[in-house]
């Protein structure tokens, strides 16, 4: 997380030492217009100052409830939404400042798998055309379209003979495999998986998670794995970042966050998961709903729902505190004993 890595161009970027993706202070705001003659404009602060970094062959799980901004964050990184501020470095290059031409070349390395496997496949194209479209565009075909398509299909566990079929002829799990094959065809460095397994049934979900783990091993991939489901994320991510109302409230190595959650919101999320076979826990502490992002509460955005809220939480935004591996944004930890956070106390912009 060396700051000077930002100045380095693509050539000097060293995957061993430098993060593949480095995000700091990223903001994506949407304007909400009132009526035609109204001067009032509200801003939805969908992503409001998010920072993290991701190494090669690493998986960051981005967890949060609907409306927390996790999808907008992914879309902003892909260039599908316009960032309102902040910096993104991908392979050492400033992603938000690239020219259109440069960005198009960079896109190859930055792929995505969306939630709904059917609506993300063109119903009028056969599988071969779908998964080799990018290869043709970038002149990356190895042999014929049919040959490359069959090879890719086999790689994601489908029959190579199926290349002339259309998306509607496949089941949900198979369609998601086709989406993965399409992402994989470009030999990307990073795949953003936005709720990629959420629409699948449990037995199929497990198959696709295992496939993603296999592909990561074989191709040295990094994943930004966006999901509302902490159980799923904890089986695939090396690190977890928890988002609430446009901000990351806690992050750290997966095992640490799951076993020792620090932020009251993370604890609430964990307590809310119904876990089969374990003693049913009392859930009195789970209350309230996420407020509208157009009028975020003052101070800490979680304080109206927080079982441990103090006076200060409603007044001031909590400081961001980070150690080597963990990051937390909560007043409970602002007077932290030094042994708990051995590293320096970060302030302002933080990388995770």
């Amino acid at each position, binding site marked *: 997380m060396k700051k000077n890595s930002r100045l380095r161009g693509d050539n000097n970027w060293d995957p061993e030492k430098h993060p593949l993706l480095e995000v700091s202070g990223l903001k994506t705001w949407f304007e909400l217009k009132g009526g035609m003659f109204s001067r009032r404009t509200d801003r939805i602060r969908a992503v409001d100052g998010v920072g993290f970094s991701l190494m090669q062959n690493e998986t960051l799980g981005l967890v949060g409830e609907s409306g927390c901004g996790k999808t907008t964050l992914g879309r902003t990184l892909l260039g599908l939404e316009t960032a309102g501020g902040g910096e993104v470095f991908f392979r050492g290059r400033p992603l938000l400042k690239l020219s259109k031409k440069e960005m198009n070349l960079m896109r190859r390395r930055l792929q995505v798998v969306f939630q709904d496997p059917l609506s993300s496949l063109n119903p009028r194209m056969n599988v071969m055309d779908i998964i080799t479209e990018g290869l043709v565009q970038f002149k990356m075909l190895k042999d014929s379209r049919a040959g490359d398509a069959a090879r890719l299909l086999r790689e994601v566990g489908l029959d190579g003979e199926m290349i002339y079929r259309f998306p509607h002829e496949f089941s949900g799990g198979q369609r998601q495999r086709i989406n993965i094959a399409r992402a994989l065809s470009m030999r990307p460095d990073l795949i953003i998986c936005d709720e990629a397994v959420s629409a699948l049934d*449990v037995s199929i979900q497990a198959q696709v998670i295992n496939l993603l783990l296999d592909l990561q091993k074989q191709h040295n991939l990094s994943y930004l794995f966006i999901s509302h489901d902490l*159980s799923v994320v904890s*089986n695939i991510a090396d690190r977890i970042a928890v988002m609430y109302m446009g901000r990351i409230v806690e992050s750290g190595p997966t095992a640490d966050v799951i076993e020792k959650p620090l932020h009251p919101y993370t604890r609430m*999320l*964990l307590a*809310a998961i119904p876990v089969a076979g374990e003693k*049913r826990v009392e859930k009195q502490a789970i209350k309230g709903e996420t407020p509208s992002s157009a009028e975020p509460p003052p101070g800490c955005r979680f304080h109206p729902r927080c079982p441990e809220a103090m006076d200060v939480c409603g007044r001031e935004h909590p400081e961001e505190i980070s150690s080597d591996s963990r990051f937390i944004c909560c007043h409970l930890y602002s007077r932290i004993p030094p042994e708990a956070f051995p590293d320096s106390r970060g302030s302002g912009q933080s990388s995770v």
Partner: protein
Amino acid sequence: MTLLSVENLAVEFTVDEGTFRAVDDVSFRISRGESLGLVGESGCGKSVTALALTRLIPSPPGRIASGSVHFQGRDLLGLKPHALRAVRGNDISMIFQEPLSALSPLHRVGRQMTEGLGFHSSMTKKEARQYALSWLEKVGIPDARHRIDSYPFQLSGGMQQRVMIAMALMLSPGLIVADEPTTALDVTTQAQIFRLITEMKQNETALLLITHDMGVVWEMCDRVIVMYASRIVESAAIEEIFSRPCHPYTIGLLEAIPKLAGGRNYLKDIAGQVPSPLNYPQGCNFQERCEHAFDRCRMETPELVECGEDHLAACFLAYPGGGRS
């Protein structure tokens, strides 16, 4: 005491490609006050089973092909439409997955709530409104006095589902059928909705909870039925099914659920995929994905047999002597 008994229910749908059975030979009972979970993956027939109870299957293309549904001794499948209408909402009420599509977008919440009261009780409009208001407060809607005049789209998903729950419970039905009531909601909202259903459900009210989530069943139900490809494959008390699952599908399903882990972890999956209902194989519907399948599984369909106390499984392995003979 048995409140609802379903015997050999079969539901058929006719589509362009042919006729298939979405529900086949389904039998179960719910006692007064019991919470029964109906679990399975998409397309297994769990929602169709729920809809068939009060004859809500769209026809055509659907048709209840055979079987019987008795509620408090009355045969619901033989009732005249007006008599059935008195049962729906009054005796059996439903909570659906998508509250926004279950509520009318054109009418205020209060009007939708009192409309049902008009059919099923002798309250005046004013009394009905007051009653609806008291229920909105009971289900924890803040500022209910104003929210009663909101349109559904003005409420959050959690609030909409609270309104649905209030409507379902308002007439103190004997049975609540909840079809994936929290699937569209966040986990923290889900926890609150389940707490609410548990608190509100009076002791004598029974619950049929349809879900794909084993964790939800564990938290909410006394007994569980597992469905696979239109048929019941296993049923047992909740502790029993988690500690001693019998059917290979149930075993696979329980193992495939992602548990909280500490990083990259391969999950046990069930190979293959659910067969299309248009061409179920001869014999057991699970044979193609089952690691124990043998010749008999490809010839006959296994019946539900006892494999423990009040524990049924439709698998030849559960038959006395291993079922190979």
